[in-house]
Each structure stands twice: as structure tokens, then as C-alpha cells.
């Protein structure tokens, strides 16, 4: 029996030192057991490496920044759809998810499927609301507060203490060791990602992450825990190992069944000295290290694509423990004309 061919558009082609998940997602899709793919890259900038990886990406289109609004994005996606007939879009950036969620119904009308969290899930798990989220679902989270004015840092400094985490609404996190640093980071983040900025209690411990997939009905379709082995100065895992930790998997199951999570996710956990897990952050999308999950037997991108098409993939129950991913960088040689073409025409 021949396998179906799906046309899947993927964002996050910025496989740079703080990588977007797109290239890893595409590798998962290309290795899918149940279908073949044509991959359409969606890029925001002309130097996203994925644009030039012609063995992975069939054609890439430039799309407008989320700041341009959902209508502008829709217009561009419909244009792309008119040329490529998309079956599925897998958005991979936090900052763009909101716009894609807004467009989910409209895109479905054009035959384009996605599998995204609901607005409620998206908002509840937001860094800004994490404290409330923890209380509601009985999951330990570090104390945190969202502030809109740097003068407020002072007010909360006693309770949260230094060092303190200063986090942007969408991206960026810094450790501040005193109030001056906290203010500097506040201003830096506010200028880039807007308000509010989140102040969070710093938890000492070891970082663990789980990537997984929820089917929107409370079932875990995939879940792989990983311990970061090496962390870059940007806080990204450059190497990690799959581990067998019942507690982490339990927490993941609790999270998925309590929230009826729909779509891919990454849980960032901190295990404190006394063995307690704190949920630091919930990323409402597939993480950049997802290829580890694929490598240990859980093809999350494939399962997500099937869910998007309304199918019911079998939940993955096992994975290989003790496998490492080790990231490396790779220099491509690209002709100037390719860069020029993409810059001027927005297509390559």
C-alpha cells in the first residue's frame, strides 16, 4: 500500500545557537512511518538556515512578523496555500502561536489543519499566570509575580529574594543578583517583549525537561523526559540524555489530564536539593530538542500531524532510556543568488 503524501508547513527554521524547533520537527516528519511529506518552510528572516537546507525543506516562503497582526498572516498563508495546497501547519514559535490560534478555524475552512492548544490552555500556562496555574492543578511552581513598572521590583524583592529570575512575557530570562541588575534586565526585556515582565523566585537545583503531546482529551500520546547535560550561555541544552523518571512522567500525566492539553508541549522542571520538582515553565509547543524523542522511539511530530488530520494515533508507551542527543553546528555554503532571491522575492 502506498503511503499518503502530506504537504506540511513548518516555522522555526532558525537552527542557530538558540535554535527554533523547525528543523528538528521536519526531521521527525521526514522519518514518519505512516506518511511521506512535502515540507514548506515558513520563515521570518532571510538568514534562517532551514531556508537553505534543500534536502529537508522543499520550498520556503517569507511570512510577516506576528506584530503585523493575524490578518496579514492569514493573507500570506492563503497566498502560499494557493500555490502549495497545504494539509497541515506546525507553528513552532511561542510569539506566533497566538496569531495561529486565532486563525485556526479560518485555516481549517481552507483545508489547512493544525493541532494547537486552546486559548484557555495557552493563557493559563502563561508565565504571567503560572502561580495561579500551579494552585489550580496542584503542581508546585516557584513563586512569581508579573510587574509592569520597574519600581515594583523593589516591593517584591523581600519576598522573592536574590538571585531572582527576570523573564519576558514571550522569551528571555536572566538571573539578577541585585536590584540594579534586576532593573537593567527589566528594561531590556520590556523594550523587546513588552509588559508585563515576570519576577520569579530562583530555585536551586537540576534542570529536567519533558517533551510530550496531549490529544486534547486528557490522554498522553507521547512523553520523553530528558536531563540537560550541557547548557549554553543562552540556557539552551546542547546535549541531553533520555531518562527514566517515574515522578516526571507522573507529573506530565497529571498536567495533560488536568488541563486536557491539546498539542505539543515542553515542561521545564527544576529538581531541588530535597528531590522536589518545581514546574518552571510550560512551553506550548514542541521544543528544539524534539529529535531526541524521535530518536528514542516517540515520533512526536508525526503523531501531532496525525492528530491534526483528525486521526487517533496509538499512544507511545516506551522509549529508549540513556540515549543522548548532542547538537552540532554545520556550515552550509550558499550562493549569494539564493540569499538574494529569498530577500527580494520572499520565496526560495
Amino acid at each position: 500500500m502506498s503511503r499518503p503524501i502530506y504537504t506540511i508547513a513548518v516555522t522555526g527554521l532558525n537552527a542557530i545557537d538558540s535554535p527554533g524547533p523547525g528543523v528538528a520537527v521536519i526531521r521527525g516528519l521526514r522519518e514518519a512511518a505512516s506518511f511521506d511529506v512535502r515540507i514548506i518552510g515558513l520563515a521570518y528572516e532571510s538568514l534562517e538556515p532551514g531556508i537553505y537546507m534543500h534536502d529537508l525543506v522543499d520550498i520556503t516562503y517569507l511570512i510577516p512578523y506576528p506584530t503585523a497582526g493575524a490578518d496579514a498572516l492569514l493573507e500570506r498563508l492563503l497566498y502560499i496555500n494557493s500555490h502549495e495546497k497545504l494539509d497541515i501547519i506546525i507553528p513552532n514559535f511561542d510569539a506566533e502561536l497566538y496569531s495561529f490560534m486565532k486563525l485556526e478555524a479560518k485555516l481549517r475552512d481552507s483545508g489547512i489543519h493544525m493541532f494547537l492548544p486552546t486559548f484557555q490552555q495557552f493563557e493559563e500556562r502563561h508565565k504571567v499566570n503560572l502561580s495561579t496555574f500551579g494552585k489550580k492543578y496542584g503542581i508546585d511552581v516557584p513563586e512569581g509575580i508579573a510587574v509592569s513598572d520597574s519600581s515594583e521590583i523593589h516591593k517584591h524583592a523581600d519576598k522573592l529574594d536574590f538571585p531572582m529570575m527576570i523573564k519576558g512575557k514571550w522569551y528571555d530570562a536572566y538571573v539578577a543578583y541585585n536590584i540594579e541588575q534586576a532593573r537593567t534586565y527589566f528594561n531590556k526585556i520590556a523594550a523587546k517583549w513588552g509588559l508585563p515582565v515576570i519576577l520569579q523566585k530562583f530555585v536551586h537545583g537540576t534542570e529536567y525537561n519533558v517533551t510530550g503531546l496531549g490529544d486534547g482529551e486528557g490522554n498522553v500520546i507521547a512523553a520523553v523526559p530528558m536531563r540537560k547535560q550541557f547548557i549554553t550561555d543562552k540556557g539552551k541544552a546542547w546535549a541531553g540524555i533520555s531518562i527514566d523518571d517515574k515522578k516526571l512522567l507522573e507529573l506530565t500525566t497529571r498536567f495533560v489530564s488536568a488541563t486536557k492539553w491539546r498539542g505539543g508541549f515542553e515542561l521545564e522542571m527544576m529538581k531541588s536539593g530535597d528531590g522536589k520538582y518545581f514546574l518552571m515553565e510550560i512551553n506550548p509547543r514542541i521544543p528544539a530538542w524534539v529529535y531526541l524523542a524521535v530518536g528514542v522511539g516517540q515520533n512526536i511530530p508525526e503523531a501531532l500531524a496525525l492528530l491534526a488530520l483528525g486521526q487517533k494515533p496509538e499512544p507511545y508507551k516506551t522509549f529508549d532510556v540513556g540515549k543522548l542527543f548532542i547538537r552540532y553546528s554545520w556550515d552550509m555554503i550558499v550562493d549569494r543568488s539564493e540569499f538574494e532571491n529569498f530577500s527580494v522575492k520572499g520565496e526560495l
Partner: protein
Amino acid sequence: MEKKHYERPHIVRLDAGMPGKSGLRSELPPTTHIDGVAVAELIEKYGSPLFVLSEKTIRNTYQKAYKAFSTRYPKVQFAWSYKTNYLSAVCNIFHQEGSWAEVVSGFEYEKAIASGVDPKKIIFNGPAKTREELVLATENGSLIHIDHLDELYMLVEVAESTSQKPRVAIRVNMDTGIYPMWDRFGFNYENGQAWDALNKIMHSGKLELMGLHTHIGTFIMSANAYAVAASKLAELARSLQQKFNHQLKYIDLGGGFASKNTLKGSYLPGSDTNPTFNEYAEAISSALINSHFTPGELPLLILETGRALIDESGYILSTVIANKRMSGGRRATIIDAGVNLLFTSFWYQHQVTVAQGTSQYREDTSLYGPLCMNIDCIRESINLPLLNVNDHVVIHKTGAYNLTQWMQFIHLRPNVVLIDEKGEVHIVREKEKLTDVSGSELIPEHLVKINQNS
């Protein structure tokens, strides 16, 4: 041979990470017409800059808001917040649609009366009402919203001498999870001030307690804050019922709904992220319907929505005066509308489009107004087509607060026109003349002549 359309020569470096021009292909299309009327014609006829209001958009927006609430809650009443835009033409559109008036000063009160609003349908808010104003409002049977204890005591005194019993509500402030908390107006809920004031009113026997009022802030991006506010007011109403067997006629949740503008510093555009009327209505109605009120007891829900009802109906048309280059190489464009007309540019990132067709080339520009003040900046950074001198631009969503907070500073204020539903254009406020400004000045005898010897 016909000469070709001219566009300034333009070159821009592609910096790493900078989007190519197709990334900007989705830039907003030019706004050549408003409600079918050509922008160029409007400027030619009525001058530049020019304020334009769309009656169609005002009515549509009002009807959308009213429907959002009336389909979810049995008794809804909007009261037009005069301070948001008190041009008589605008107020009267809202009154024709069924709005009451919400005023915060003797001046606004007079204006509403002069427009023929039934005094019983005027809500008198604000922290600074005079005794004379309180007497007048009491005799007229208007709804007086008490802001502080001094006003409460004054009103009890006033009640001694008036023929009518003052019809009152108190303004309550509270924690709804919104920062900053507006706690300088009214009586606080959490610390018991509000309950204390209600007791004083009930015990005085001199005032007719009609309702409860709150205005939790402005541009509130969370619909849930209103659910919290509605629940807290419902709680107070329940206490009144239990202790005094007193039924309130209304709960007034004030204004504060976000318009579709984008706040400075926000990453996504407001038109995507700000709650819709339906979302606000859902939060408020659910909170009230799920409170202790039995269906028959549900109080009238009053809303004093301002900016969300009018922002989108307003445009400022403006003309390019000059293109400059700043010392660091940045492009700057000067237009003839500045912060003197567009007060809201201090906190909104107003959308600006051009009024004529353009090529696909864009440049990053700072957009400045015509004042010789550093603060006169409409947009610090905006991607615009290559504008020539005398080209027109359209500034969007300017309907709220600008026509009340604009200032006659350096320049006289321009015409304001309203495009009616048939596309007819009416001047609703004439452009100012020198005598409008200097006409009310008086010059002491010895200063009349500037040449002392003659």
C-alpha cells in the same frame, strides 16, 4: 509623453536578521477613502490637518456592543461617557441610539442638559462636584455618584433644603487583579469603606440609594477583571438586602473596555489581543447571573463605555510637510498633525497609513508633528512607503479623548467633519480663528499700544 510617477530614490542595506521587503508586503494598504469619501477631496475641501468621524462606524460599534450585552443579560443601559468625546454631534448619535449621559463636571452636565437629555438619565460622576451642582442635579432628579465622605455629608446637607431626595449611588474601588489599582476614586471595597458609606446613606434616611458604581480603570485587557468587579458589587448588594431589605435598581460597571488600538510596548497588535465586546459581556453577565440575585431581582446593568465605542470611528488626515534625515542617518517625516491634536499618541502606537498608492518600497521612519517640541512625536518608528512632500497620511482610531484633550497650543485647531451614513460630509466643529483664541482676552489700557511713543 506623460511623465512617470515620481518616487524618491531609495537604498537600504539588508542587515542580517532584517526581513526582506516581502516580509513587509503585508503592510497595510493605502487608505484612499473613508466611508466612500476620497481622502484627497476631504483635505482639499476642509483643509489639513482634518479630524474625520464616521457615523456609520459609531452606530455599528454601538450596536455591536449593545447586542453583545442584551443577548446575555436582560436589562442593559449604556451611558455615553462625555469626556471621551463631547462633540454634540457625537453625543447625539449615542443618545439617538439610546444611550444615557455620563458626566464628570458641571460643564459636561450643562452640555448634556442643553442637548436635551432627560436629567433623570444623566449620571453625575467625578470627585469635584460643587454644592450648586449637587443642588441642581438633585432638583433635576439626576443620578449622583458619590466619590468621597465629604461629598456624602454635603449631599445630606443639600437634601435638607431641596424639594427632591437626592438619587445616589456610591463609587466603589477594589482589587480586581488589575495593575495599577485605581483606588483614588470612591470608597474601597476590601477595607470596608464602601460598606461603611452605604450604612451612612441608609441610616441618614435623606438619600435615595439607587445603585452601585465602579470604574476599575481604563484599557483593561482582561475581561475577567470585570467578572471580579461585578461579583464584588453583587456581594455589597446582597449585604444591603440582608441588613436593610433594600433592593438596588442598578449596578454600574463604568468604562474601561480596551479599544482596538495597540498600546505602546505591546508585541502583538491590539486588534488581535484585546477582548471583544462579547468576551466582556460574557464575563460580566455570567458573574451577575450566577450571583445571589433571583431572576426577578437582577438589577439594571449600566455601562459607561467610552474609548471602545468611539476610537475606531475617528481619523486624522494629515499632510507631509518635510522629509529629513537625522544626524544618525535615520529618516524623519514631519506632518501637520502633532500631539496637539493626538494626545493619545503618548500611549498608543497609532496605525498610520498613506492615502495614495505606492510602490512596494518601505523605509523605517520617525513620524513627527509640527510643534517645535521634542515630545511631538506621532510614531518613533514606523515602516512607511516613500512619502513625498504634500502626500497625505491617515492616522487611525483617534476617536476617543483626542477631541476633548487636544490643545490649542502653537496651532489653531482644525475642522472636524462627520461623514453620515449616506456619505454626506458635515462640519461638526469649525476650525478655529484667531478671534476664537484672542477674543476672550482683555488687554489693560497701558498695554494696548506696543509702540509707546506713538
